[in-house]
């Protein structure tokens, strides 16, 4: 009896494995891919001015002792519109928001900012996704908290909402 059980064991194991593989194959929700750059210095990037009225964005801009937000966005990104009012409020609280626009054009950005508002102090036009990949960003919108020494403290994936404001302000060291 015992021996028979032992002989069935491999079959039972295989069956269990098969079922678990099948389950994870048929049930794979979109995963949020977090950047591995959190806790590390901001990678080297330099994105030229996205619109003529404002300077571009580069790593060097983040090392002057002032914590900032780095917002990865795009004019074609619908959820990005939703977070502009919250970014505007953060700006009003004294937060500097640096924008990195991905897969975008100057003309589209000008129209986007005119329609939705412009919370950015600088906007870099990311050519060929170089800044985005350097940051480990997988989509838009994403917002990174960068400290005054240029270290990435936190990555917020998705729309920044009212509920996220307090946390972001605390991380940026802005007392309300």
């Amino acid at each position: 009896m015992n021996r028979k059980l032992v002989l069935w064991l491999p079959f039972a194991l295989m069956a269990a494995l098969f079922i678990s593989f099948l389950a994870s194959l048929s049930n794979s929700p979109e995963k949020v891919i977090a950047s591995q750059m959190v806790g590390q210095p901001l990678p080297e990037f330099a994105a030229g001015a996205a619109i003529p009225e404002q300077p571009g964005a580069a790593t060097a801009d983040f090392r002057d002792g002032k914590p900032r937000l780095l917002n990865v966005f795009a004019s074609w990104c619908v959820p990005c519109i939703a977070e502009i009012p919250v970014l505007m409020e953060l700006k009003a609280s004294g937060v500097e928001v640096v924008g990195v626009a991905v897969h975008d054009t100057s003309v589209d950005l000008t129209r986007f900012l005119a329609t939705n508002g412009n919370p950015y102090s600088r906007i870099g036009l990311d050519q060929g996704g170089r800044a985005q990949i350097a940051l480990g960003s997988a989509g838009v919108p994403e917002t990174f908290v960068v400290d005054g020494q240029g270290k990435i403290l936190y990555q917020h994936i998705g729309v920044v909402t009212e509920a996220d404001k307090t946390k972001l302000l605390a991380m940026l060291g802005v007392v309300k």
Partner: protein
Amino acid sequence: MRILKILIAAMLLGAAPAWAQDLADISLSDPKQESQALALMDSIRCVVCQGQPISGSNAELAGDMRRIIRERIAAGDTPEAVRTMLISKYGDWVTFRPQLKPATLPLWIIPLLALLAGVWLVSRRLGWRQN
């Protein structure tokens, strides 16, 4: 007919510079480097259309990754160095080929253990028959 040929030639000449630069979709001139790049692209997961390798994805970010892979390999980097760079950005998730490290050790050890257990079971079974 000749006019048509000249026209087509002119159109091709005009079109070539537009995409000759973009390594997202254009092969490297060195076939060995290109095959290394392609093999790597087949095993790097697209972070937008998840589950697809970047070699078969239409997402712009996948194109950006293909461009960076070709550039780095053309510049002399090994495919594994480029894979390591991408893992350092997006984590283990981005590669379809698991790396050997403490967290992934079971992936490599369990099949070996299973094989050993199987050999042990079979040898015992055969042993009974002989007795």
